[in-house]
Every structure is written in C-alpha cells, then in structure tokens.
C-alpha cells in the first residue's frame, strides 16, 4: 500500500480517536454546588417489546419529579430526569447505565422496566456503588444475585403476586372448584415467575396442569398455543404475559371460542389500551396488581389528583411503580441529607434497609436482599371497569366466578 494512503489512514484514525475521547471526557461532576439541579439517570424501554409498560413507568417518574419540584425540590434543589431508551435490550441497558453513572455523573439512578433488564442494570449500579431502587424487577432471580444495593418498589415479589387468587380458588367447595389449569408464559423471569408461582400453589392444592407452554418474547402468533389450550378444555387459563403477547393470546382464544371458568393474565389487563385491544370483551379477566388509584393512602390521593391533571387520566400500576420508586429514594435522601455518587450512596442503602417508607402503595419495607414484605391485590374486569376483588378487606367489587363467555 502506498505510504500516502497509509498516512492518510493513520490521520483519520488519530482524529477519530481524539474526537471520541474528547467528547466523552467532558461531563458534569457529581454532587456539584448546592443550587445545581440533582441529575437522576434512568434507562427505560421506550421502544421494543416492553415499551407500553416502559412508557407507563416514565410517566410515573415524570409525575414524581413534577410533584417534588413544585414542592420546592429535594434538599432545596430541583430534580432533573435524564431518560435513555434501551429499546428493551439487555445490552443497551448496561451501556446506558455506564453512560449515566460514568459519563453524565448522575447523582442518583432509578431502575428500568422488566426483570430481564433490571438484573444487568443492577449489576452496573452495584459495581459502581450506587443505590438501585427499581420499579419492575420482581422475579426471584433478581434477589438471588447477591445485590446489596437493590430495592424493589412494590408490595410483593413475582411468585407471590397471585397468592390471594390461589387462596380463593382452593377455598371453593369441591363441586364448583376448577379441576384443570393451562399455563402459557413468556420466557421472561417476571412473567413466568407470576404464572409459575400460581402454578406451584394450585398444583399443591390438587388442580391438574394440562398445558404448560413457554414462548420467547417476540412471539406474535399464538394460534397453536391457543389451539392446545382450547383442545385441553382447561377450567383455568393463566397467562404469564407482558402486554401485546397477552392481548394476542386472548384474541387467539376468543377466535377459538374457548370459554374458561377463570382467566388470569399478568400485566396486560392493567394497561390503558387493553379493553379496546381485545374488542372490549374483557368481562371476568383477572390480573394481579400492586396498586389501585382508589387506595386511601395519603400520598396516593395527592398522586392521583396531580397525575390526572398532568396526563388527563388516572394512573395505573406502572405509573404508580415509577412514582413509588421516586418516593422511596426521596425518603432516603431526605433522611440522610446527601445526594451524590460515592459513600453517600451506601448511607442511603443502609437507611432503607433499616426503615419503612410510606408510599402510594402503602408502607413498604424490605429484607436484606431487597424483597418487599407485602402482598399484591387481585383485580378483575367487572362491568367494563377494572376493580379490586381480592383480598376481602380491600375489595371494590364482588369477584365474578365463573367467567362469563367472551
């Protein structure tokens, strides 16, 4: 190769290297002067498989930031949220948090959506010594990774989401109790975790599993899974779903005129677009939830009011999870009195391990692995609205059993 070419190439390389290094090197310093805004770094799946719930969490975070800023800020400083879109990809979420912590020097980080993304993101935060409160990593593997800085901002872990439903079903008299169950779960730790948590309890109680299917996240064609479920004529169908896959499975089951006595799906039925997506044939569909807008906790009343004003509609579980995360972190920051990278983060972690926090989903406290110690409620679509039916003391409507035809 001619020397001229080689030199040209070398110069191009040098320029590129210097350009990247220079652009990367400039960034803010953490914990700067007291009147600068507090930078909170967040990576969320705003596009891709988890985009619906991801956007919900974003709205929750934004609502929290507005409430805090309108009230004078945190420790007297305004909070600024920086969102990055990880496109529901575990690779991107890691580089996003590396960027937020390493380059942007965020003072705090909030967690992303979905267990699949939470585990790698939490590892980044843990290794940089940052507090990691997350709104959506509920599967048991999250808490088995040995993370010390992680806290899940909702009442219960995935396998316990359906506890009240399991109790209700197993308490039914012999004649009316369902005998068989079909399970279809996305190969996602959370979605599968909820379904398999229920499966374990129902099997222990004598309800036979006749279909047990697991599908990858980008599955869109459910005709064969639906055909198997319909052919099995199972009394109960349990979907461990996120959003669109739940919708598609329900439509596929409707197309086959399969009529179960109980239909329980995670996440999908609680999303705002759900009713329209399944042709408004929602009567009787059950979903676990950690949150209800009608809950009477004091911070919840304020949250619902301000959220509805900001976004023209009431919040649902994802937004509440985001808001709760903000509340938990804010409580720690206010109690400890510092907000920056470094030893401050360990103080925040220690405080949360020792103290409960009042949130829109009630008082939360955690064990040493970050697991919350509460329980989820069960909602059902009744008369065109989604309402709490279990547990008895919190219910807004009577449970509809068996499920009416689609």
């Amino acid at each position: 190769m001619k020397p001229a070419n080689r030199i040209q190439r070398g110069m191009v390389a040098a320029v590129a290297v210097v350009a990247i290094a220079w652009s990367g090197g400039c960034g803010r310093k953490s914990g700067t002067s007291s009147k600068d805004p507090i930078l909170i770094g967040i990576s969320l799946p705003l596009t891709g498989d988890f985009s619906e719930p991801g956007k919900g969490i974003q709205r929750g975070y934004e609502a929290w930031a507005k409430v805090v800023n309108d009230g004078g800020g945190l420790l007297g400083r305004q909070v600024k949220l920086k969102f990055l879109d990880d496109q529901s990809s575990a690779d991107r979420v890691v580089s996003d948090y590396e960027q937020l912590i390493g380059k942007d020097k965020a003072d705090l980080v909030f967690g992303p959506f979905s267990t699949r993304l939470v585990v790698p993101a939490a590892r980044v935060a843990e290794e940089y010594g940052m507090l990691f409160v997350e709104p959506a990593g509920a599967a048991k593997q999250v808490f088995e990774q040995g993370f010390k800085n992680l806290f899940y901002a909702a009442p219960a872990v995935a396998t316990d989401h359906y506890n009240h439903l399991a109790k209700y079903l197993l308490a039914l008299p012999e004649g009316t109790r369902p005998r068989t169950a079909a399970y279809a779960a996305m190969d996602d730790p959370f979605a599968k975790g909820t379904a398999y948590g229920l499966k374990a309890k129902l099997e222990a109680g004598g309800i036979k599993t006749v279909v047990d299917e697991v599908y990858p996240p980008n599955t869109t064609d459910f005709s064969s899974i639906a055909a198997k479920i319909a052919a099995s004529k199972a009394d109960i169908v349990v979907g461990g779903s996120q959003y669109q896959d739940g919708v598609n499975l329900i439509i596929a089951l409707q197309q086959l005129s399969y009529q179960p006595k109980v239909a329980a799906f995670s996440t999908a039925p609680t999303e705002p677009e759900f009713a329209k997506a399944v042709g408004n044939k929602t009567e009787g569909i059950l979903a676990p939830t950690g949150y209800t807008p009608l809950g009477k906790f004091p911070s919840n009343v304020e949250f619902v009011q301000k959220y509805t004003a900001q976004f023209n509609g009431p919040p649902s579980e994802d937004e509440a999870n985001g808001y709760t995360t903000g509340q938990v972190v804010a409580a720690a920051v206010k109690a400890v009195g510092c907000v920056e990278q470094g030893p401050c983060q360990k103080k925040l972690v220690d405080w949360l391990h020792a103290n409960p926090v009042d949130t829109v989903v009630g008082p939360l406290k955690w064990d040493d692995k970050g697991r919350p110690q509460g329980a989820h409620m069960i909602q059902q679509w009744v008369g065109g609205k989604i309402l709490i039916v279990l547990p008895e003391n919190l219910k807004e409507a009577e449970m509809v059993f068996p499920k009416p035809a689609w």
Partner: protein
Amino acid sequence: MPSGSEPRRSAPALRPILRLAAIAVGAALILSFPAIAGNPYMVTVGIGILNYAVLATAWNFVGGFTGYISLGHGALSGLGAYATALLVTVAGLPSFAALLVAAALVAALAIPIGAAALRVRGASFVIVSIALVLILVLVFQSWESLTGGSRGLVVPRPFPALHRAEHHRVFFFLFAGLLALALAAWWLIDRSRFGLGLKAIREDEDKSEALGIPTFTYKLVVFVVSAALTALGGGLYALWFGDLDPVFQFSVLNGSTVVLMALLGGVRHLFGPMLGALVVGAGLEYAKLEYGDTPLHLVATGLVLGVVVMVMPDGVIPALSSLVRRLFGPREASIREVTAAELLEGRRRAPPPPPEPAPPRDDAAEVSR
C-alpha cells in the same frame, strides 16, 4: 521521458520507514486510549469499537480474499460467545481456557458448515448465511434449559476481584491484543501464495479452478480461519460483557454492520476493516450520545450502506484518495506522451508523409499469414 504509467517515485528507502512509523503511531494511540479517555464509560465505547474491528477484520478473510459476502458471521460470533459461556458455567473451565476451547469448537463446526455453504455460490450462499443466523436465534431462544433462553445467560467474570473500571481497562488491552493477532494473520495470508490463490478465486472462480487452484479447499480453509477469529471475538465479548441474550448475539443486523464497516474501510487493505469499524462505531456512538437511541440510526446505517454499495464498492478511503488525487494531485499523463492538441499542431506543421505504395496482392502470402 518519464511515462505517466510509471508509479510516482519517492525515495525507496523511505517507504517501509513511513509505513512502520504510521503503524507505531496508530498502536500508541490505541494503547494510550484508556488513559486519555475521561471515564470508564468511554473505555467501554473503545472496547465496543475494538470488538467491531476484530469482527470486521475476521470477516474480511472471507469477504476480502474470496469476494463471498457473508451476512452470517453473526452466527459464528454468537456461537463463540455461548460456547465460551457454557464451558465456563457448565463445564467449569477457567475463563481463558474456555475461550480457546470454544474457538476451536467453532472452528471445527465451521468445517461442515463451510462445506455445505460454500458448495453453492452467489445467491444461495447469502441465503444460507442469513438462514444460519436466524435458525440459531430460534434454537438458542427455545433451548432455555441449556442457554437460559430469553432470560439471558450470565457469564462469571474472569477476574472477580477487579473493580468495574479496572475490568474495562484490562479487557480493552485484551481486545487490542486480539485485534493485533487478527491483523497479523490477515497480513500473513495476504502475502502468501494461499492468499494469491484466494484472490484469484475472487476475480474469477471458474478460471481459477481451471488453472488448477483447489478452490473448494482454499475457500474452506479461509472460512475456518475466519470462523476461529470471529469466535474468539465473540467469546472475549462474552467474558467482558457477562450477559448473553440470543437476540443480540445472533443478529443479522450486527453481522451486516460489520460488513458495512469492512466495505467502508476497504476490503482489500489490511487496516481497511479496522478503520471502517472506527469510523462507523464512533459515528454510531456519537449519534447515540447526542440524539439518544432512535430508529434513525437504522435509516442512517441503511443509507450509508446503500451509498457505499452503489458508488464506492471498493471502500470509502480508496474512493476518497482517488478523488483527492484527481482533484489536487499532479495531472497523470495519458498513455500517449503528448496531448491530442499537440499532436494536431505537430501534424499541421509537418507535411504528411506520402502514402506507401500498396503491396501487390498475393493470395498465397495472405493464406500463409
């Protein structure tokens, strides 16, 4: 009179020195990058670019020498990554031993794969290479008991005691080492008779076969070498990143970004793919920092690829160099030593020579000619 077709001469002794100097400067810049970079995040960006450079150079063994455009090298890097990960987690091998064994396994696997894929040419080869990636996504997603499926496979760190920032630094140098290995291998083949045979295949496969080059064997050997290096790249990435997802590991998009990098930099040159990786990788990272992750990146990548294919299939840098030379360099003379205008002038001044008498027509002489 000097003819325009002779190469421009510079002092002969200078060329190897200039070459070595340029390489030394480049190497120094690369090795000092972790120190220049302001924070660990930039080091991860650097690792990403080095990873791309390794993959692009490894791809270029097949693409550059034989001319076969494989969009399926993502399959090989993904296999390298998962093989390394599984050897560490399931078989309990130490990390770098697992890396080497994994590369050997993928190279062994590349023999039947290559034998099947290289039997067909052109369109079928491309279809097979893409199909390989797509089937592996399905297999690795479904076989969740082994691979963790879409829940991901966690790969333990080779150096658990290292702080995260240090971990990034160490792997930066490891990747740089792997890149040097790949470049050395490419350079060796480039200079060898084996490489000459491969380039003949690229120019015209049938004629090379007719000339006695064992085309199938040559193609297979270079494919296996390419596969081994690609698998090393994928495996090293698995050890560094620590979390594998089938959709990201077996990605036709990733594979074709690597192809774009090699094309952009120039497939016929040693440092072409590396430079392409630098430019495209830096461009993608810069766009991400400024504008966030948007689908516009896909549009931009597609447009750049399309432009490169239509306008400069030999690579941007050769195209730019020739453009620069045409615009600013000394005017290259034509084969004729004088211009047409001067020739016309000369003819006008001198009288035309008298026409030669026609030789007598001699049929016998014609036939014997």
